[in-house]
C-alpha cells in the first residue's frame, strides 16, 4: 500500500499545472522527434539537456520522460506511412503497417499503433509501480549465458518470418548477419569488414539498414516500375478502427507489455528484440495468417505495445539500480547526475517526490499522447494522397536526413544508398526484408553474449548452460522445435490406432 500512497502523492506533483505543461511540451517534442527519422530520443534528450538547466529537476525529468514516450509513439508514424522507421524500435511497425497504409488503411494502422503504445505504456508503468524492486534485483541475475539463450530463442522465432521460401529467407538473414559483422570486434578490438575506414568501425546503425532496405529499396523499386504503370494515388479509407479491427487487436495490445517490459528492464534488452518477438508471437497466434505481410493489424498492435512497455521497463533499472539499459536511459542518468542526483538503490528514499512525480507523469503523458495521436491519425494518413513521384521524393529526402542525423557523417549517405541498392536487388529476387534487419540486430548481440559467456567460464562450454534461466530457455526451445514432430507423431499413432481398430472391426 505504501507504493500506492506514494503514487498518489506523485500525482499531486505531476498534476500541478506547470508540470502538466512540461509533460505536454515533452510529449509534443517527443512526437515530433519520433516522426523525424534519424533523431532518436537519446539525441533529443541530450540536445535539450542544457535548455533544462534552469528548470527544477522534477519538471526536467517529467519533460524527458514525455520525450522518451513521445518518441516511441511518433517513431511508428513514418514507419507505417512512409516505410521509413524513425528509430530501431519502430522497424517492425513498417512490416504490416506500411502494407495497410498502401491499402488505404493507414489511419487504422496508426490508431492501432497509438492505442498499442497507450496500453503498453499503461500496463508497463503499472508493472513498474508494482514490481520495480523485485524486477530490478532479478535483472542483475541475468548474465551472458541467459542473454545468449534468449538470442537463440529469437533466432528460432525468426524462422517463422522467413516467408514462403525458406532459402530466400535464410539468404536475407545472412545478408543481415554480414552487415552486422561490420565494425570493431567488441572483445578484441579487431576491425572486421571495415576496409580500413574508421567511420565503419562502430558498424552500420540499424536505423540506416532499415531505412535503406525499406524506404530506399522501395523507392527505387517503385521508380523502376512507375513508367510502366500509371501512378494512382494511394487510397485513403475510413478514418476509424472498425469493430472487427478492435476484436483482432485487443489481445495483441495486452500481450505486448508482457513481452516488452522484461526486456526493457534487463541490461542488454532494449526495445528491438521484444518487438520482433511480439511480431512472431502474434503471427503464430493469428487467425488471419493469410493477411500477414499484406497488412495484418495484429502485427502493428502487438509490437508497438511491446515497444512502449519496454520503455517503462527501462525506467525500472534506471531508477532502482542506476543501471542504464538503453541509450536514452544513459542520457537521462547523466542528466540526473547533472542535478547532483544519483539514481540507484537510495533514490526512492532520498528523492521520493522526484521519483513518484516522474512515475505519475508517465500516466499523465500517456493520456496526453493518446489524445494527441488518435485524432492526428487520419490527418497523417492523408499524407499518402500526395502523388507518388512527389511522395517518394519526400521519402528519399527524409531517409537521407535520417541517415545523416544518426552519425553526422557523409559516408552514412553512401552506405544508405548501397544498402538501398541491396534492398532493390532483394525485392527484384523476392527476398523478404525483415530477416535481414533482424540479422543486423541479433547477430552482433548473440555473438557478443556467447563470447562473453565463454570468456567468463574461461572457455568451458558448460558456461553456456550453467544457469537455471538459460536451461529453462533451452528447454522451451527444444519443446518448440519438437512440437510439430510430436504432433505429427501423435497424429500418426492415433491414425494407426484408428486403422487397426477398423481392421479389427473388419476381422470380427
Amino acid at each position, binding site marked *: 500500500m505504501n507504493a500506492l500512497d506514494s503514487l498518489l502523492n506523485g500525482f499531486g506533483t505531476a498534476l500541478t499545472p506547470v508540470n502538466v505543461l512540461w509533460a505536454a511540451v515533452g510529449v509534443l517534442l517527443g512526437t515530433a522527434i519520433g516522426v523525424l527519422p534519424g533523431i532518436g530520443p537519446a*539525441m533529443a534528450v541530450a540536445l535539450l539537456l542544457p535548455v533544462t538547466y534552469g528548470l527544477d529537476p522534477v519538471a526536467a525529468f517529467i519533460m524527458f520522460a514525455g520525450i522518451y514516450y513521445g518518441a516511441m509513439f511518433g517513431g511508428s508514424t513514418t514507419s507505417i506511412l512512409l516505410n521509413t522507421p524513425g528509430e530501431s524500435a519502430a522497424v517492425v511497425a513498417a512490416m504490416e503497417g506500411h502494407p495497410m497504409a498502401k491499402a488505404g488503411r493507414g489511419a487504422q494502422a496508426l490508431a492501432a499503433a497509438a492505442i498499442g503504445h497507450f496500453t503498453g505504456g499503461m500496463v508497463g508503468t503499472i508493472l513498474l509501480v508494482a514490481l520495480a524492486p523485485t524486477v530490478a534485483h532479478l*535483472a542483475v541475475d541475468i548474465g551472458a549465458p541467459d542473454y545468449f539463450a534468449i538470442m537463440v530463442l529469437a533466432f528460432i522465432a525468426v524462422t517463422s518470418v522467413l516467408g514462403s521460401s525458406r532459402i530466400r529467407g535464410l539468404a536475407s538473414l545472412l545478408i543481415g548477419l554480414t552487415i552486422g559483422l561490420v565494425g570493431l570486434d567488441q572483445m578484441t578490438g579487431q576491425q572486421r569488414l571495415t576496409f580500413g575506414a574508421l567511420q565503419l568501425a562502430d558498424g552500420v546503425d540499424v536505423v540506416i539498414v532499415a531505412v535503406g532496405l525499406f524506404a530506399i529499396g522501395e523507392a527505387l523499386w517503385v521508380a523502376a516500375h512507375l513508367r510502366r504503370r500509371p501512378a494512382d494515388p494511394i487510397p485513403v479509407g475510413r478514418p476509424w478502427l472498425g469493430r472487427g479491427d478492435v476484436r483482432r487487436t485487443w489481445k495483441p495490445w495486452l500481450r505486448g507489455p508482457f513481452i516488452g517490459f522484461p526486456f526493457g528492464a534487463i541490461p542488454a534488452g532494449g526495445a528491438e528484440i521484444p518487438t520482433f518477438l511480439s511480431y512472431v508471437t502474434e503471427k503464430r497466434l493469428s487467425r488471419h495468417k493469410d493477411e500477414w505481410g499484406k497488412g495484418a493489424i495484429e502485427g502493428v498492435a502487438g509490437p508497438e505495445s511491446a515497444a512502449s512497455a519496454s520503455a517503462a521497463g527501462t525506467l525500472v533499472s534506471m531508477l532502482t539500480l542506476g543501471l542504464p539499459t538503453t541509450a536514452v536511459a544513459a542520457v537521462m542518468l*547523466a542528466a540526473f547526475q547533472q542535478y547532483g542526483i544519483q539514481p540507484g538503490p537510495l533514490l526512492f528514499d532520498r528523492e521520493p517526490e522526484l521519483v513518484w512525480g516522474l512515475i505519475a507523469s508517465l500516466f499523465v503523458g500517456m493520456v496526453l499522447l493518446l489524445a494527441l495521436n488518435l485524432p492526428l491519425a487520419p*490527418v497523417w494518413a492523408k499524407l499518402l494522397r500526395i502523388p507518388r513521384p512527389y511522395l517518394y521524393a519526400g521519402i528519399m529526402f527524409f531517409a537521407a536526413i535520417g541517415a545523416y542525423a544518426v552519425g553526422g557523417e557523409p559516408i552514412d549517405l553512401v552506405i544508405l544508398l548501397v544498402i538501398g541498392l541491396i534492398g532493390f536487388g532483394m525485392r527484384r529476387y523476392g527476398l523478404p526484408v525483415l530477416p535481414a534487419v533482424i540479422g543486423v540486430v541479433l547477430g552482433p548481440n548473440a555473438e557478443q553474449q556467447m563470447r562473453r559467456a565463454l570468456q567468463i567460464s574461461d572457455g568451458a562450454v558448460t558456461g553456456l548452460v550453467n544457469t537455471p534461466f538459460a536451461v529453462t530457455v533451452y528447454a522451451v526451445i527444444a519443446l518448440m522445435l519438437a512440437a510439430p514432430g510430436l504432433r505429427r507423431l501423435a497424429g500418426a499413432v492415433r491414425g494407426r490406432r484408428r486403422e487397426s481398430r477398423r481392421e479389427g472391426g473388419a476381422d470380427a
Partner: protein
Amino acid sequence: MRLRTPLALLGAAVLVLAGPPLLSAGSDEDTGTRIPGLRLMVPNTPGGGYDITARTAAKDAKEAGLTHGIEVFNLPGAGGTVGLSRLVSEHGNGRLAMSMGLGVVGAARSNHAPKTLADTTPIARLTEEQDVVVVARNSPYRTIDELVGAWKEAPGKVPVGGGSSPGGPDHLAPMLMARAAGITPGSVNYIPFDGGGELLASILGNKVGFGVSGVGEYLDQIRAGELRVLAVTGPERVPDLADVPTLRESGYDVDFTNWRGLVAPPGLSDAERGKLIRFAEELHDSPEWRRSMERNGWDDAFLPGEEFGAFLKAEDRRVVSVLKELGL
C-alpha cells in the same frame, strides 16, 4: 489544404530541433578572450563522459560570461578516433576544440588510427578521476590481497569486467595492476562491456571476479553497501572513500588516473592557440566550473598548453608499452 496540419507540425519540429544549434552559432564580437562561433566536438555518444564534460564546460562558460554560447556536437565512432581524424583535418581552425581523455589515446593506438594526438594542438587537461577496484557485497574477496592472491593462482578463473574496449582506461588499469602483482597481462581475462549498465549488473551478480570503473560512476552503489571497494588506483586516497587504500599502499606499484581535457586542430597561429588556452584558464577559474566539478565528483587536474602536450606524450608511451605487451 489538407496537408497544412502535418506540414505545419513538421515545420515546427524542424524549427525546434534546428533552432537552438543555429541560434547558438550566432556571431558575437571578437573581443578579448571571446571566441565567436566556438564549437566543441564530442567524439563519443550523447551521455558519455566526454559529452558531459563538453556540455558542462559550454554551459559554465556561458554563465560565467566567457562566451555567448558554444555549440556542442557529437561525432562518435571507433572510441573517439573518428572525431580525432576530423579534428586533425580541420587544420588551422581556431574555433574548434575536442573534448577528450585517456580513452582516445588508447583508441588511437589500438585502432592503429592514421592520426594520433601528437597531430593536435593540446589546450588543457581539465579533470581527473581515479578508478576503483570493486566487487559485489557477497563476493568472496574481502581485501585486495585476497583478490590478487586468487587472481595470481588462476588468472583465467577471475574474469575482470571493465566499461571500455581494449586500449581504454578500464582496460589499462587492471593490466597495470596485473603487471605490478606479477601476473602476465596477456593471461588476464578482461571482459569489455558497453558503458556502465551491463558491467554493473555483472559485478552485482558476481558474474565477473571484479570490476574496474571510474569512482564517480558507482559511488551510490558503494554508499548503499551493494558494492565493496577493495582499492583505488590513484596516488592518493579519495576523500569520499577515505578508508579505502590505494593500490600503492597495498604494495602494488600502480599509479593510474583517468583524465579529460581539450585539444584543438593542428596548424593554429600562436594567437589562436593562446586564446583557446586562455579560455580554458578562465573557465577553470570560474566559480561555475568549480561548482560543476564538485557536483560531478571530478578532481581538478588543470594543466595548460605545453605541459599538457608533454603529459599526452607520456600517457601515449604508457599505453603503447601495455598494448605491446598484450600484442595488440
